């Protein structure tokens, strides 16, 4: 799935990791470790995100303007002020919305048709 970035002619491939990060950031601003933990939570332990994959995805998303890094730092008493926080941009929200719509329409088709699993027809 390609997200067309109208700003600079580059397109971002919405990988499962990037999609999960967008989902997490749709709930509010997060720092890296919070994103990592929440991605694991919403994937129900089926996906484990490593720090390198996380920050490579973050870099890709920053380059594609899907997210932005916040200038303000958290209160030192509440959190580590060295942590960098990230926020979903309008473009990121649109990419997320488009992908969710695409998945919803796919799901509708699957539910309507029922599918074959191990040669047995399964209805949803």
């Amino acid at each position, binding site marked *: 799935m390609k997200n067309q970035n109208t700003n600079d002619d580059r397109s971002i491939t919405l990988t499962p990791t990037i999609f999960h990060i967008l989902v997490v950031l749709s709930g509010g601003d997060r720092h890296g470790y919070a994103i990592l933990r929440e991605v694991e939570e919403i994937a129900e332990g089926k996906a484990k995100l490593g*720090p*390198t994959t*996380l920050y490579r995805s973050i870099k890709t998303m920053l380059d594609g303007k899907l997210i932005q890094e916040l200038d303000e730092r958290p209160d030192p008493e509440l959190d580590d002020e060295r*942590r960098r926080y990230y926020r979903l941009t309008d473009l990121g929200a649109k990419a997320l919305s488009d992908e969710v719509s695409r998945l919803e329409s796919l799901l509708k088709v699957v539910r309507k048709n029922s599918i074959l699993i191990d040669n047995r027809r399964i209805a949803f």
Partner: protein
Amino acid sequence: MKQFHNNFWMTFSVYVYQRLSFILPAEFRLNYGRDMSQVFRDCCRRAYLRKGNVGVLGELVAGTFDLLINAVRAGITALIDDNRRMLVLLMISMVGTGAGAYAAFADLQGNEWPGPIFMVVIFTFALGFLRPSSSWLTGLLIGLMFPVMHFVARNKGWEIAHPTGGSSPYWASLALIPALIGSTFGAVSRSVLDHIVSRFEQ
């Protein structure tokens, strides 16, 4: 609650992870190295609280694997980005040369000149439209294949069914005219189409 501030395996794991991160591209490491180490340390703490030292070592193995995979991916991406332009140019050149050779061969075999010239115009227009920035190159390559093929045919003594009864690389050079016209029209058409599409999108 388990104490992890002075835990050897935790310190060791973070140290190894930081050292290993030097295999990542320098720019990326400078921008995100500290954050990655911090997140890795947090992951180690959580793993220690759940499974003790075994959890920390498991985190080190997983973190190292993640780092290696991404270093390879980053290396491949950088390699492709560096060579992409060159590869595209090479492919365009090969396609242009092949198309030119085909049209020139048809010219050598046929008695009618409009057919090969029509082919030249179609090929150059299509390649110019696909990649306007290289249209001059494809035009030149396709056009030049005519004198080249005629030159080869004459020197190799190929049987030629040409209207002139022989092969003349000099006359064949005239194929450059429709070739350059076709490629220019291809590039201009693409530019016009892009302009119309962008206006429509606005």
